[in-house]
Each structure stands twice: as C-alpha cells, then as structure tokens.
C-alpha cells in the first residue's frame, strides 16, 4: 500500500514540480519523499523507478501520439536508434534510473 502511495506521490509531485522547475525535479521529488516515507532501500529504488519511468513514459506518449510520431521518428534517427518506440523506451528508462537512484539514496539517508 505504501509502495503504491509512494509511486502516486512521485508522479503527482513531479508533474507539478516540472511545471515550474527544470527536469531535475525527477531526482528531487523521489529523494524528498523517501526521506519521509519508511521504506527499504531496494523497495524505494523500485518505487522511484516505476514512478518516474511511468510518468515520463505517459507524458511522452501524450505528446507523441497526437504528433503522429513525427518528432520521435526524427529524434530516433538523430540518436541512431532503430525506431521511435526504442527512443521512448530509452527516455523512460533514463528517467526511471534517475528517479530510482534518488529515492534509494533518500531511503538510505533517512534517520
């Protein structure tokens, strides 16, 4: 239950935070939440990872689908990736790693 709550909080606060502050809110928010929420390091990582990865994944899709993949297709070529699907996967993965690591370090630093 706490795990789910963690994820929901990450998504909610990051999406608000990113309206006003740069992309690195995806590190600040999971770190902050795990400072206050009693959860083991590994579980925190997973929750932070899932929270940010799913947030970024959905946020990209919300742009990419109405765009008919025009931009993602060109950006995929730019990064020498085989197709836009892979690009979106990599983006979500990158966000997830940053979110997960931040949550983990927050959990470890919690007193």
């Amino acid at each position: 239950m706490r795990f789910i709550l963690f994820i929901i909080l990450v998504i909610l606060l990051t999406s608000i935070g990113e309206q006003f502050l740069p992309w690195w809110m995806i590190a600040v928010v999971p770190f902050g939440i795990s400072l206050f929420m009693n959860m083991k390091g590994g579980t925190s990582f997973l929750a932070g990872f899932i929270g940010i990865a799913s947030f970024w994944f959905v946020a990209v899709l919300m742009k990419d689908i109405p765009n008919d993949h025009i931009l993602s297709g060109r950006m995929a070529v730019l990064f020498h990736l085989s197709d836009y699907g892979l690009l979106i996967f990599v983006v979500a993965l990158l966000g997830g790693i940053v979110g997960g690591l931040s949550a983990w370090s927050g959990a470890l630093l919690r007193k």
Partner: protein
Amino acid sequence: MRSSLGILLLALTGLLVYKLDQPMGSLPALGRLVDPINGCWTSAEDADKNFTETISIPSLSHNAQVWFDARMVPHIHAASDHDIYYLEGYIHAYFRLWQMDMETRAAAGKVSEVIGIKGFEFDRKQRRKGMIYAAEQSLKAMEADPRTKVMMDAYTEGINAYISQLKFRDFPLEYKLMGFKPEPWTNIKSALLLKYMADDLTGATDDIPLSYLREVLSPEIFQLLYPESITGSKTIIPHGTIFEKPSLGKPTAPANTIFPHFTKKDFKETREDGIGSNNWAISGSRTKSGATILCDDPHLGLNLPSLWYEIQMQSPGMNVYGVSLPGAPGVIIGFNDSLAWGFTNNYRDVKDFYLVKKVEGNNKKYWFDGQQRDFTQRLEHIIIKGEKEFVDTVNYTLHGPVMYDERYAAEGGLGKPLAMCWMAHRSTNELLAVYQMNRAKDYNSFVDGILNFQCPAQNMIYADKAGNIAAWGQGQFVNKWKDQGKYIMDGSDKAALWGDLIPMRENPHVLNPPRGYVFSANECITDSTYPYWYNQSFVEFRAWRIDQVLDTLPKATIQDMFALQNDNYSVLAANMLPLMLRLLPDSLGDREKGYANQLRNWNYRLSAGKTEGSIFQVWWFYLYNKTWSDLSSVPSLLYPTPERTMQLLQQADSGKVKLKELENLPQLMSVSLRQAADSLEKARKKGLEWYKVKNTTVSHLSRLPAFGFSDLKIGGWGNTVNAAKGNHGPSWRMVVQLGKEIEAYGVYPGGQSGNPGSKYYANFLNQWVAGRYNKLLFLPFSDKQNTTEIKYTWTINK
C-alpha cells in the same frame, strides 16, 4: 554505515543528474533535452492542432486578423504600416525563430558563439568581408527613410513581442539541441539578413583567379578561353533594343600598369560554381487566356527550414502575396492585385579588389595617390563557445576593408594585402524598393520602386494586368573603364578608383519587346550596343532552352509554364553528345561501347529515374576535366566555362580553332569515356538512375541528417531549366497569370513551419520533387473573409 552508503549513492546520483544537465562534447544536455515536460517533446506539435486563437497585442494601433489556409500560409489584414510589419515579425518568429537567428548569426560571423570552434573560419571570413560594417551602412539609409524606419521598427517589435513571452519550454527544438537561447531582435539583424543575401548573390568574383590567369596565359589564349561574352548569348535585353544615349561619358582606361603583376608562386587554386535562376514573362498576345503570365524560380541553397516563407499582407494601399525572407520585412518575390515580379541574379561585377601598398615600417598607413593615409581600424571580436575570444584587426582603406593580408590569405593562397571595394558596403536601402514594389499599381510606380534596389543587382522581370511585360537589369553600377575591376588593381593609383555611379534609369531594360516575351536565366545582360562596359561570367544553357521553348509557344498556358520550370532538357547534351559519339574511335572496349550505345537514342532529358543522364553527365565531367587538365597549369577550378568548352570543342572539330589541348579529339573522347565507365561501375552498387547519382539533398541548416532529406527523386542539373543540383536548386517556383482574377501557383522545397516536429515542416517537398504546384489563395482586400479555404483565424485585439 547505512548513511555513508547513502551519501555515496547521493553523490553518485547528483553526479549523474549534473552530467545529464550539461552538454557533453557535441551532444546536448540529455536530461534537459529528453524531458517530456520542458524538453524536445514540446516540439511534438499535435498533428490536428487548432491554430485558431484570440491574441491580445496592446501595441497595435487597431485590431487585426490573420487567416491561415490549409497549408498554413498566413493572410494578414492590418490597419496600418506599423501593424502589418509588426504582425509579419510576430508570425516569422512564431514559425521560424531559430532559422532567423542562425541566418543573421551567419551573416554577422557570430556562429562560433553557439557552435564553438568549428564555426571559427567561417566567422572570420564574414568579419573580414566587412559584413557587419555593410549592415551598419545600410541600416543608416533604412532608418533615415520614414517608410522603412516604420517597417523595420515595427517588424523588430513584433519579433520581440513573441520572443519575450518564451520560456525554455517554448524554445524551438534546435535551441535545446544546441544549448543556447534566443536573444532580442534588433534592426541591424534585419539589415544583416539582407546583406547575407547580397553576399550570397554578389559575393563571388573572379578578380583574383583572373589575375592569376593573366599571368600564365598568353593574351590570345586568354581571350579565346575567357571571352567577356559568349557568342550566341540570348541576352536578357533582346538584341535590337535601342538603349538611351548614356548621360556619362566613356571613362578612359589608364595604362596597363594599373594591374599589378603576381608570380605563379603567389597562387594555388580556387573557383566556385555560380548560382542560377530563371524567370520570364509572356505578353497576352502569346498566351491562351490573353492575360500576361509571369514565372520565377530563383535557384538558391536548398535548406530546411526553407529560406522562403509564403505570406499575404493587406494594409491600406497594399494587397500583396509572395515569399518573404524570415528575418526581413515585406514580400521579396510575388504579386499584388495589379502586377507581379520575379528576380534572378544579375552577375554584373560589383566587387573589386585593390592591392594595398603599405607604408614600410608603419602598420597604420598606406599609400594613395602619392600620399600616406591612415587605415581605419576595426576590431572584430569573435566569441567562441568554450574557447578564448579572438580579436581580429581589420584595416579599412578608402576602397574598403583589407580583406586579405599576410595573416589571412586570399583564394589561391595569395598572401598580399587586398582591399575589397564592394557595392554591398555602400549605404543602400533595398527595403524601400520592397516597400514600393509591394504597393506598386502600374509599371511606372514599380520602376520608381526598383530604382532603390541597388545591391544585390537583380534581373527583374515584370508583368501586369494592363498587359505589360518588362525586364530590368537592376542594381547600382559604376561607370567603369574597360577592364576596370576585372583583375586586381593597384590600390595606390587614383586612376583605379571607382568612378561615377551610372544613373539607375539608364540600367538596361525593355518594355513590351516585339517578340512578346522576356526572360532571364543569369545569362549575359545586353549585346554590345549597350553603352557602358561591364564584366562577369554569365551562364547560357538555361537561357538557350527557355528561349527555344517560349519561341515555339504561340498560345502559352499555365500548364506549359509548369512544364518549362520542370524541364530537364539539356542543351549541353543536345549540342555535345552527337559530336562526342561521332568522334569515338572504333577501338573501344565492350563496356565503353555498351555505355555509348545506350546514349544513341536518348532524348537529352536528365530524367530522374533514367540512366542516360547519369552516363552523359559523368562522361561530360571527365571530358571537361580531361580537356583542360593539361592547360598550362591552370588549376582545376579555373577552367573555362562549360559553355565555352562546348563551343571550343565544336570549333576544334570543324577546324576553326587550333588549340594544343584540343588536337586529338577522338582520344579525348575515348579516354574520358573509359574514365566515365570506371566511375559508373563503382556507382552501380547504389544504382545508376540519375537522381541517385546526383543526390539532390535538402538539408537542415544545422546539417543534422535526421532533419534533412536526401536522394530526392528529381531530375535536372545546372545545365537544365530545372536546375536541381546537389544542395542547390529552384528554391521557389511561381507562376502567376494576371487576368481579371489573378491565378497563381507556387511551391518551395519545405514547409511553412520551421519545427522538425511539425507536420508543416517539409510538407511541400514531395510536390516540389514531382513538379506539382499549390494553388495560391489570394484573398480580396477586406477585413472580413468568406471562404471555406480559411482553416484557422487569429483574432488580434489591441
């Protein structure tokens, strides 16, 4: 233990975040870039985006409307000069901001500031040419005239109104990729953009290479290979046109010592291919509809975002449609409710070089007319991203900036101090011409307008609803003595100075010539009866073809015009190939015979999907190079023009010309065919279709292949009317029939949006490749429009 692990992990995470927030080498800051909320994804424009909105702009004098049609061409209706140019600026910035920024940076030599050291050589050249100086000079004239002052100020205001509301999130994609941000617009930037065009169109000059050739060739051979005009030229102003009596006398040429000598060792090599364009107008007596028709297709570098942006602008006294240059106000090429006009480049030489005689032992002075004069020094600060600033001191003489010297060698490696005298450095106001052309009602008011168009000189073709057609070789020219400026001149001699300016009304022109059509395709401008002397190398192939087609069209239609603009017929091939085949010796290899046989029944069209064009062009390439490769050590890029080469080969064949290089024609033909066959065998892997061999590419200004298009299936080459070359070609094809209702068509290789994430980014490209056109929606002058062709509306409240 736990917390020290935590600190370590936190440090690692922090480092990762920090790294992702910084550019790495040529890579952008990845974290910032891929962020779905603020990064590149904001450029993923909804394919069904509804652009309709209400915008509040308090600095407008009245309310205004902008209607967008299905192709996203804006049709602006505004109540004053200020408002119309304000909105043009706003719209240019809305759709093309990064491009405007980069192009003005390129003009000014400020590219290294955003791309780092790889832009340095380019920037330095721009500074040495005096590009900023040139823009400053013109800005004075533009701001001195109340009409162009309003035009520029309002345009700048509009751009800045758009920029000022942007956050990082809203920046065009390229800013995020390159890691810089838009800066406020200023009037000088628009002036720079116009100078960028002037440089593109009048920047090339043969003075330095010709000075070299003069040293290495005998005068007879020189005349033979590099004649001032080519026989058989279909001049822009038709033969038989009577020129007015010149108001200026013929200046006497000074003694030949005015041209300093150089030694062969002073040079290495260089010469770039020219640029070309076509335009023509047909009188109603030769069209099916009875109305005049005007066509234009200026050939320029093919880039995305496109150089051009289509627009219609209505304000009191003006209803104009055409293409604008994002970064400058007004419509450059187009039509209004009375008339239409189109440009091609006029190659008359307006850029000359002077050898500067420095005062020995004094870096600050030079000799002129027996006296010492001070250089005016201009410090050019080149900011380089990631490096120390570079300061270049450029000396200005009374001729102009010393572009080259021992610290910055000229083409061919000539490390002598050469000052450049260039019309683009003068205080000219081309915007005023744009202002007046856009509003012209008839031939006379049009001419009044273009008389302000000084540099870059253009061949302007004109047609109106009243049935007139005209051609002007328009620009500001100098009354030169024969050969003045053809070679590098002695800068210390007063006799070498540019003399009087030729009154603009005496520029070569013709109104309603008896043959019923006018055209230009960068060919020679006049025959020898024109009273003033001028030079430059002109090209002829396209002009020959256009004349051939127009001459045989007694009742021209719009369809005929489409066909001619997309015509791939090669006059070069038609004239050369029969000779090339006939002269081939019998002793050919099977492979060579095979290629030659494929050409025997060819229609001389460089069609995209056919192989004959490839075989001919590759063969011609080797023949041309083989012909001149032994020519008394002339560097490869200084060879005589293809037109002249063709004529000389024909004359050598008929025995009219004796030239060592052309003695053994059969051998020339067979050796070059063998070389061509070798090269074609290698090209076979990719495919021998002409479009694959030539690879016409439209690339993004950043040169990122992901945002460009290559191997476009388009025919033609520089020697055909459809001059689609590697990265250069018809940048805007326009056909306007000036009947009671104007019927106009156009297409350019791009799209209205500069955003690579928009469906409007390159949506005209396939049409352009296929030679198809868009019908242009020309709305009547009104603040209310009633047509289903309007898709979105901006209601603009003050």
